[in-house]
């Protein structure tokens, strides 16, 4: 479960940049067994929102509860219960696939048999045994993706956060990620993911929040959005919502 309550993030002015209000008092809720899509253009505030939920960034005001823990009060507890995957979460090139997944397992407090069992299960499920002892720098994009997925799942978190997970990937790799996101939902996990690809949001999301300029301008199931804006096409809905705002 994720419950965001008036989350805001302001990046203060620097010598080179003005103050940026990246996220502006947004509130939303994602339930277990559901996929919540944060749909927005570049610079809309998607990454900042997800980084705040993953406690990589602190909110300027407001808070959120992730898996029952407050992101401001108990950030370490939150991270124990979250799997975070984005295109900017790279792998350690000089570690092998197995070493990397084991390392993240240990960082999540796992050891001994529990860790071994989790790693073996994941490697078998994701068909990774063929390259388990190969260093990450020698892996193909698809293999790296599997390692990243195994890294986020090693501690079996109840909440999954994906920040534009298919950006820059080819069709096959993007489909694999989409399949993985669906599997997370089937296993009853709470899933939130950000994208600017309309087709992806259409196929995957149970609920969609359209974010623009740090504000959630529209929210609901795909059907609700279609009914509200009298059009079937999500792109038209998006342009209407964002365009109205602009």
């Amino acid at each position, binding site marked *: 479960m994720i419950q965001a309550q008036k989350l805001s993030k302001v990046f203060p002015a620097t010598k080179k940049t003005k103050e940026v209000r990246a996220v502006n008092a947004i509130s939303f809720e994602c339930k277990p067994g559901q996929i919540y899509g944060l749909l927005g253009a570049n610079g809309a505030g998607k990454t900042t929102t997800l980084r705040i939920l993953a406690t990589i960034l602190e909110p300027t005001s407001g808070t959120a509860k992730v898996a029952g823990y407050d992101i401001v009060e108990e950030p370490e507890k939150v991270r124990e219960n979250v799997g975070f995957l984005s295109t*900017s*979460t*790279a*792998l*350690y090139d*000089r570690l092998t696939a197995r070493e990397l997944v084991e390392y*993240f397992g240990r960082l999540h407090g796992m050891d001994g048999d529990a860790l071994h069992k989790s790693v073996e299960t994941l490697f078998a499920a994701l068909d990774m045994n063929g390259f388990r002892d190969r260093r990450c720098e020698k892996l193909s994009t698809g293999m790296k993706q599997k390692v990243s997925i195994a890294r986020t799942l090693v501690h079996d978190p109840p909440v999954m956060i994906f920040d534009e997970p298919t950006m820059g990937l080819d069709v096959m790799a993007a489909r694999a990620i989409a399949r993985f996101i669906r599997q997370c939902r089937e296993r009853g996990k709470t899933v939130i993911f950000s994208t600017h690809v309309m087709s992806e949001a259409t196929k995957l999301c149970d609920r969609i929040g359209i974010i623009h300029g740090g504000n959630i301008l529209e929210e609901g199931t795909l059907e609700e959005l279609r009914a509200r804006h009298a059009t079937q096409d999500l792109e038209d809905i998006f342009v209407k919502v964002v365009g109205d705002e602009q």
Partner: protein
Amino acid sequence: MSLRNIGVVYRKELVDSLRDRRTVISMFVIPILLFPALSVGLGLLGASMMNKAKEEIPRVMIVGGQDSPRIVEALKKSDKFQIVPESPDFETQITDRKIRVAVVIPPGFDAAANQGEAGKVLVDYYEGDIKSELTQDTVREFLSDYRGELARSLLSARNVPKGLMRPFEVSKNNVAPPEKVGGSGVGGMVPYFVIILAFTGAMYPAMDLTAGEKERGTMETILTSPVSRTDLVLGKFFTVVTASLATAILALTSMGISFMLAKSTIDKALAKGEPGFHFALDPRGVLAVFVMILPLSVLFSAAMLAVSLFAKSFREAQTYISPLTFVVIMPAIVALLPGVELNTRTALVPILSTTLVGKELMAGNHPWGFIALIFASSCIYASIAIGAAVTMFNRESVLFRS
């Protein structure tokens, strides 16, 4: 803070670093091969150059002296130099290195010397040219002996007893044991080398584990783990300290072995009768130097972590860290200058104090008061640096600087 988590991060960072070719070069190849090769190689080269300079029979020109055959003959008879015919451009010949020195004899020298009214014999040489300087020493020594002999024969002709001419003899005698001689000579350089190596050893991993991680995109990955940022930075910090100390220990061990192996060669290369090459170091002194280096190594590691953490990329980190090299080298060089001694003021200057106390320790002296003061002050500076690194790692404006 969790020791378990710090240990997990430390082990991973160590494995990761040891698989990085650049870290391996800076941690193993440079200290084990390059530094000994440079220091021993330069020592051998220096000794052989010195030897060659001494073996050469230098060309010396006598200017004037046509009316003073006695001194001219004496000079010509010496087998320490080769007399060349007089030429009016002798000064140019010296600066062109065609001759090493010229001995200018004033007119009527022999006759005047007999009356005890001799003028000044001038030895022209090229200052800064080692061969000319060495020849100038030899010629002056020769002329000094010649003057003594002449004085003795003149006084003897006046019936003055010869013994009065040399009422006493002077000779020198070293009372310092070989360890102390070594400690003040080659050993005095040991703390300097160890400090520089402790710095360079920490440099690469400090940049790689911070700015390098940001550049490669793994910083965000690691921040998603539940391990606290303090544990993360401490795990990285201990890795950097390990690299720093390992570099210094490996370099010193390798240098020690190389010097032992090269000792006989260097001794042979040096001319006979010279003081020789002292490398009798007190192992306890070396150990004590390492103990004093510990807080300094911690200071270097933490400071470099904090600085390179601020950088967005490895290249930017290099821009920040490179000038720091001078900050380390300068106090170490100042400590090697004559007259710079350990006192309450210098004991509080980081790096300088450790080099100075290191010199004392290598010479077998143990100024306990200063040792305690320097260790304590270095520990305080190191703690401040660790605090700065931890603070930097907890600031998202630093971690996500763009």
